[in-house]
């Protein structure tokens, strides 16, 4: 099929606006997935995605579509995640496409990631096809959506297609628009083969599998390929496309989206954003890659069982390959032994990675309290970066500490204005300016310290606005702030893994909340255990872990001895799963739980 009959597009939107559901209908309409094997949210293939009902990874799929013009087109679709933590996934998918279907939930209207993702698409010069989705909902407000499209996104309302992924409305209109409005693949005339690596995966049998968008030339099994960033050569073992399952084909040609299996076995050898070319006739210019993303949140991850260290290391390597936004390096902790400092784009990202380590790699891990990256100016003008509270120098050595801020775009209904302003204040933020989005909504542009929005900002925003508020953010500047290290003592011993850097004015409140939450999460103990928060040795908050009151089996006859032993054995093994801090056993997921506000 010639490249001019190929269309590459992705589906982008704010979280939950129905991207994956609409993709289901498109898969059905094009008979890509047979009805009998079709499942809801089909492209959300990871267990975690299915369970949580959110997309975490972009998922590519190749389809054929007989258009109304009588020609048969090859369509490469990518379903993308909507959550702000995974916006990096969206940018990578956009780089592999010429068009984007932008969904707007008819009942929610334009939200923060609608704007953010639309801007990403404009910046990559993609053709954007606006779709008002979920029009089956009784609360759908088409008029408002169309107006927002023009006012906020400057897209003419006439371009909008009305659809419902759930009810199967507008599917054909969308496919026709893709064929007519999205331009055919670009840069196909480049004289040498070039393929952009937009993702990769580690397979225990086949090694590293690169997900690629071919821009020019062809690549087939047996070719000697070359990674342009390193010059490393490797023989191509297999090429194929996503149907959506990986399906082997003879060769990948210009405009195609597919995968390449090669001799590359080591996860560190391939980098997302790299360009693959052919070794015997290499290209001279790389395709535009992606700007490096900088993780914003760090925490230590440690194996609960110290003998799992190597297993954890391998797991991190594989996850990193599949997720370029995730970084790690080794570190150690007094309380936890040897582990890794890991960087994430946000808390959801952090939670998902931890969950994947536990499930997909079967390593039990414990995480430390998350931290952002601080800039610490020491006497003599030396500046160091601190992403782990343990490494904060003595107060005597510090001239000042600077903390990262974010520039946030917060979309809210007008009537929530007062409460949201108060929330921003509470979080040590300032409102830079206010823009009217339409008659009922405003957008606040705020500067907020990153460490304040990590934990519960988004939840609070949602609850104040009854679900109608949303936020997008990018990293802003560093600013000087009165920050101190808060230690947590369990049974009078400081536990380094629980230390955090907080604003002095907030220390007491945070200390109290943390002690309270820890006291609640740590299962009742056989003896009195105090949880304390301290700054520079001074206790600022305390709470007690519940004392166990009753743990005894009533009846023990002769016949119950073996049974009873099994029960006690289970209890003993359960304890082993927890981490021992002195005499106190703490469940390994304690910190993820601490961060979750009810």
């Amino acid at each position, binding site marked *: 099929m010639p490249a001019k009959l190929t269309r590459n597009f992705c589906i982008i939107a704010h979280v939950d606006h129905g991207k994956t559901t609409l993709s289901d209908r498109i898969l059905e309409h094009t008979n890509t997935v047979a009805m009998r094997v079709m499942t809801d949210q089909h492209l959300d293939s990871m267990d975690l995605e299915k369970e949580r009902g959110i997309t975490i990874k972009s998922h590519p799929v190749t389809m054929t579509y007989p258009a109304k013009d009588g020609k048969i087109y090859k369509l490469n679709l990518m379903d993308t995640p909507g959550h702000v933590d995974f916006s990096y996934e969206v940018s990578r998918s956009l780089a592999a496409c010429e068009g984007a279907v932008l969904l707007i939930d008819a009942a929610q209207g334009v939200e923060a990631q609608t704007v953010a993702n639309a801007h990403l698409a404009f910046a990559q010069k993609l053709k954007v096809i606006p779709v008002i989705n979920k029009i089956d909902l009784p609360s759908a407000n088409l008029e408002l959506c169309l107006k927002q499209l023009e006012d906020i996104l400057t897209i003419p309302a006439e371009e909008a297609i009305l659809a419902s992924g759930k009810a199967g409305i507008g599917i054909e209109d969308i496919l026709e628009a893709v064929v007519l409005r999205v331009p055919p693949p670009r840069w196909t005339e480049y004289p040498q083969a070039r393929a952009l690596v937009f993702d990769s995966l580690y397979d225990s049998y086949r090694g590293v599998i690169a997900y690629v968008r071919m821009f020019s030339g062809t690549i087939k099994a047996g070719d000697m390929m070359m990674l342009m960033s390193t010059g490393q050569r490797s023989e191509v073992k297999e090429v194929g496309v996503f149907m959506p399952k990986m399906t082997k084909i003879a060769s990948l040609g210009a405009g195609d989206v597919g995968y390449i299996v090669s001799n590359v076995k080591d996860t560190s050898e391939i980098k997302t954003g790299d360009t693959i070319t052919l070794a015997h006739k290499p290209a001279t210019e790389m395709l535009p890659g992606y700007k490096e993303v900088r993780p914003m949140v760090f925490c230590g991850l440690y194996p609960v069982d110290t003998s799992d260290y190597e297993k954890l290391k391998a797991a991190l390597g594989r996850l990193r390959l599949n997720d370029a936004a995730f970084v790690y390096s080794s570190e150690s902790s007094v309380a936890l032994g040897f582990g890794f400092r890991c960087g994430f784009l946000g808390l959801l990202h952090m939670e998902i990675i931890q969950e994947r380590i536990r499930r997909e790699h079967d390593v039990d891990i414990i995480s430390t309290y998350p931290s952002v990256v601080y800039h610490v100016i020491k006497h003599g003008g030396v500046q160091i970066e601190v992403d782990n509270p343990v490494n904060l120098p003595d107060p005597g050595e510090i001239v000042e500490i600077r903390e990262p801020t974010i520039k946030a775009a917060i979309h809210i209904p007008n009537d929530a204005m007062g409460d949201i302003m108060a929330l921003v204040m509470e979080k040590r933020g300032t409102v830079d300016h206010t823009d009217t989005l339409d008659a009922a909504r405003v957008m606040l542009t705020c500067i907020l310290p990153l460490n304040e929005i990590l934990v519960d900002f988004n939840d609070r925003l949602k609850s104040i606005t009854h679900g109608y508020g949303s936020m997008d953010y990018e990293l802003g500047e560093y600013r000087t702030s009165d920050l101190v290290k808060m230690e947590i003592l369990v049974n009078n011993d400081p536990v380094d893994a629980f230390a955090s850097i907080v604003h002095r004015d907030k220390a007491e409140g945070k200390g109290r909340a943390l002690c309270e939450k820890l006291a609640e999460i740590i299962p009742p103990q*056989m*003896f009195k255990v105090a949880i304390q928060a301290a700054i520079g040795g001074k206790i600022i908050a305390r709470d007690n872990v519940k004392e*166990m*009151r*009753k*743990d*005894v*089996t*009533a*009846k*023990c*006859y*002769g*016949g*119950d*001895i*073996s049974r*009873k*032993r099994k*029960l*006690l*054995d289970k*209890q*003993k093994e359960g*304890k082993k799963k927890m981490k021992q801090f002195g*005499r106190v056993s703490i469940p390994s997921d304690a910190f993820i739980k601490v961060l979750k506000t009810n």
Partner: protein
Amino acid sequence: MSGLPTEQAKAATRAPLGLYVHVPFCASTCDFCAFYQTQPTAVGVGRFLDGIAQEAALVDWSEPVTTVFWGGGTPGLLAPRDLARLAATVRARCGGAPQEWTVELAPASVTEARLAALKEAGVTRASMGVQSFQPALLEALGRAHSREQIYRAYDRVRAAEFASVNLDLMFALPGQTEAEWAADVREAVALAPDHLSTYCLTFEEDTALWVKLSQGRVKLDPEHEARLYESTWAQLATAGYAQYEVSNFAHPGHACLHNLNTWRMHEWVGLGPSAASQHAGWRGANVADLDQWLARIGRGERVTEDRVALTSALRAEDALIFGLRMNAGVDLSAWRPRCPEAPWTAVEALLDRLAGDGLAQRDGGWVRLTDRGRLLADSVGSEVMAAFSTEAFVA
């Protein structure tokens, strides 16, 4: 011991050996019950009695039996003739009268004829499953007896003049208040039994109650249970019943010897489906199914389930785990020489820690749990297990 008949005096000086017989028949199934039991039929009972005789013949009886316990199921459900037959099989292994012979009874099936048969056989101790005096709670437990039946049965049992009479009660029943439970205890005390067992309701897997729990229709409340435990202990102490184990109380001289010997890790032979044995170097149980048990006995096989060798370390470990449930505690100085290879350093460290936390008391070679410690006996038990599985020892 001067008051005991001579045969019993002899038995008292021998190494204790228990004989447990599991009689797997009940009229109906209680909601909380996890014991193996089935509906009695004439044919089933006959085969059971044959099986017991056959199984008894397979045991190496080098020592005479000192205590007997018939549990179930409801042994008291057998016809007088069958009780006599079972008794004959048992007596043959005792080398005279045992020190103690307990039979479990259900209030609904206590008759004068049955009691006469038991008395005639030499039974010394009657244990009756009352559970509660409150009609509504009895119903909630799926118990097939009434308040009136309890009183009638108790009068009959007393009239039969057994040396010792026990009543079983249950607490922390769904919906039961502290006051209701205190009333049950008062009512039981008013009957003046020699022994009382008060069991906190346990949710055993595969019971009707467990199903309710997993459906969220009843809830566990350890705080409430702890309060009930404490008030029971206080109430019974005032009434003159000394606690000797987590759930057991007795007037002086009426503690259940058979159970004490079990918890002290002596030996016992278990006959019947699901019965456990700890004897002749092995611990284990029979299969919990009448037909399968009969089939295996027919092939000369017993103690086929969870069979483990009875090492001295296992005994020492369990003597601690189960001994600490008793108020008297455990005599470590007796166990150390019997099992010098056990990880005593780790055990000592654990016991010192428990003592430091006010959960245990050390007194010469003895260690016992405090009231608070006894309420945590399972946690303590799992720590004892952990101490015994310290790497140096296992390797």
